[in-house]
């Protein structure tokens, strides 16, 4: 079996011998990523309506369903109507702290069978198992959004405490709630935020950042486009005009 030392030594030797093929540079990195991220946010605070329009266009272009409501109080009605249309009752949701609002009572009052994911890691394995099997059973998964990217219609979700990976993955219908503070224009800007998050040792992120660009799809049988092969068959994005995220 190769050891790390000999494996890397062979690479080092090759790199030392190989002439550069042409003068080449890696991508420019933000020198102060947090500050640059902040200045992107500030600029976008001015022109978020255009960014939202572009996001909507791209999101719908990848078969996402876009909704818009005035305030966070109106989200439970929007979720309930999505549930009714597909005869669904069971819903798993990110924890209120992760979502930025506690919608559990309102959703429950509207007849949904709501399972809120815990804010902290379950201590025993069987609880973990139980929660996962709920996520695998119910029809709806409700999450927040860390970034919404206009260039591609992409939702970026960061995993962590109270924000399980499975909520946006196992249920056949994913509903994501966001406001203008999540909007970005371009993938390049996403790069700045990724750099900023990783540069911050205090950030309590989980081990996965997922870019979601529409519902799960495949074209593996005769190139026929089919949705929902493994992940959700539907992705809904509910935009809330009145910012609700802290």
């Amino acid at each position: 079996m190769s050891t790390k030392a000999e494996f890397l030594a062979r690479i080092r030797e090759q790199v030392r011998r190989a002439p550069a093929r042409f003068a080449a540079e890696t991508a420019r990195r933000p020198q102060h990523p947090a500050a640059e991220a902040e200045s992107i946010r500030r600029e976008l605070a001015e022109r978020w309506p255009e960014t939202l329009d572009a996001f909507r266009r791209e999101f719908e272009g990848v078969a996402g369903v876009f909704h818009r409501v005035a305030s966070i109080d109106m989200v439970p009605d929007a979720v309930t109507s999505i549930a009714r249309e597909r005869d669904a009752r069971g819903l798993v949701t990110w924890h209120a702290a992760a979502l930025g609002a506690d919608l559990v009572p309102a959703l429950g009052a509207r007849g949904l069978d709501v399972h809120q994911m815990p804010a902290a890691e379950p201590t025993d394995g069987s609880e973990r198992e139980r929660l996962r099997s709920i996520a695998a059973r119910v029809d709806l998964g409700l999450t927040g959004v860390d970034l919404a990217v206009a260039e591609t219609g992409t939702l970026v979700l960061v995993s962590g405490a109270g924000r399980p990976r499975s909520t946006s993955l196992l249920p056949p219908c994913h509903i994501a709630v966001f406001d203008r503070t999540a909007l970005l224009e371009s993938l390049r800007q996403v790069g700045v935020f990724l750099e900023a998050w990783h540069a911050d040792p205090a950030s309590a992120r989980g081990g996965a950042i997922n870019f979601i660009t529409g519902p799960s799809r495949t074209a593996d049988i005769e190139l026929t486009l089919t949705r929902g092969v493994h992940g959700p068959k539907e992705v809904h994005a509910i935009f809330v005009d009145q910012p609700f995220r802290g």
Partner: protein
Amino acid sequence: MSTGDLGTPFRQRAGGAMQDAFLQEALTIATTKFIGLRREAFAGFPDGESLRDQARAIKEATLQQLDRHLETLIANVERLGGRVHYAATPAEARAIIVDIARASGARMAVKSKSMATEEIHLNEALEAAGITPIETDLGEYIIQLAHERPSHIIAPAIHKTKGQVAELFTRELKRPAEPDPEALTRIARVELREKFLQADIGITGANFAVADTGTIVLVTNEGNGRMVTSLPRVHVAVMGVEKVVPSMSDLMVFLAILAKSATGQKLSVYTSLVQGPRRGGELEGPEEFHLVLLDGGRIAQIDGPLREALSCLRCGACLNVCPVYRQIGGHAYGYTYPGPIGILLTAMMEGTEAVRDLAHASSLCGACLEACPVRIDIPRMLIELRREVDDRKIAPWPERVVFALLARLLQRPRLYRLAARAGRLVQRPFVASGRIGRVPLFFGEWTRTRDLPAVAARTFQERWATDRELRG
């Protein structure tokens, strides 16, 4: 008919593929569709060309300091609680993964689509160790059930009809299946959902690895990559050493062009950035994370003639535009990686002898270079491989004699003129209205389907020498 059998010469394997009427139709439809989607995606993306240049530069810049970037990657993966393994050969990679699986008591492994695990023939090794590997990409799942290999880098089962898939599901899954893609996909969803929840270990490749953060990046459309990295207790990622990129800023450049080149999407549905095992507070994610760094012939090319091929993103764009791939499909190439880039990767992994014939499976039309998101000069490297085949006398001797004679002829104008006259004599019985129909021997390969122009009654230079009016 098995067209992938290496016991048969390449020319016959290619011929076999061209006899397969369904394959022919499927290839034309699929490659034409992919070409159109890619064109449209870049037509609507003014930054595309400069991002391609930038991506190419990032790959080269990374190679110039590959040791340093890998050390950073390794340190970060370990800092996050992952373990890094080093495989010089496919056999070592297989042994490492089997050991990890055994140590965790795994009975079943779910895999998301990965060319690297195809390359190391992992499934056979897992099976031999009593671990059931389950391919979860729908296309890969289909070909695994059929005991075949992928025929396209991003659409592994394009050679199968929905009818064939329905028969396969009915037989292998004991579920009556209609030949309807939607219904077949539903069946696969149910079957595989169960496996995702049961499996002990998830195995993936890596489209990229970000050194600066210790992040493995997986790009999928189906969501199986997310399942495989979220649900099982153990996650093993296998990647060639060349897949490392320095930073998140670099990664975004590649993401902006990868899906456009592969399927014409602006982004694939899921891009998953996974970092080590699950963190405190997380409900899901693996308890163990292993990264297997694979050499498999790559390291020797850092300073080798195939260096540029280390920039390949595995997008499949060069396959779709290649006139040869479009006629023969992926299996006829006979190795894991098909198409023009596949010839280079096969030479890298299996040695030059393996591509003695494949190096010539190109008209050098340059469509691959034009389509490649990182502008890999595939034709130039194919010519390099041909040169190596000749220099090391791997080429068959009659060919070497023919080319040696040709080289002499082209350096001696008197000999050249003599050959033209000889040609006129020899061709005489075969010429009709200035064309040659069917002739035997060497030129027979040409004239079976095409006429050959006759050597002119007077060559241009003969006319120029004697024709006053022409000389003016």
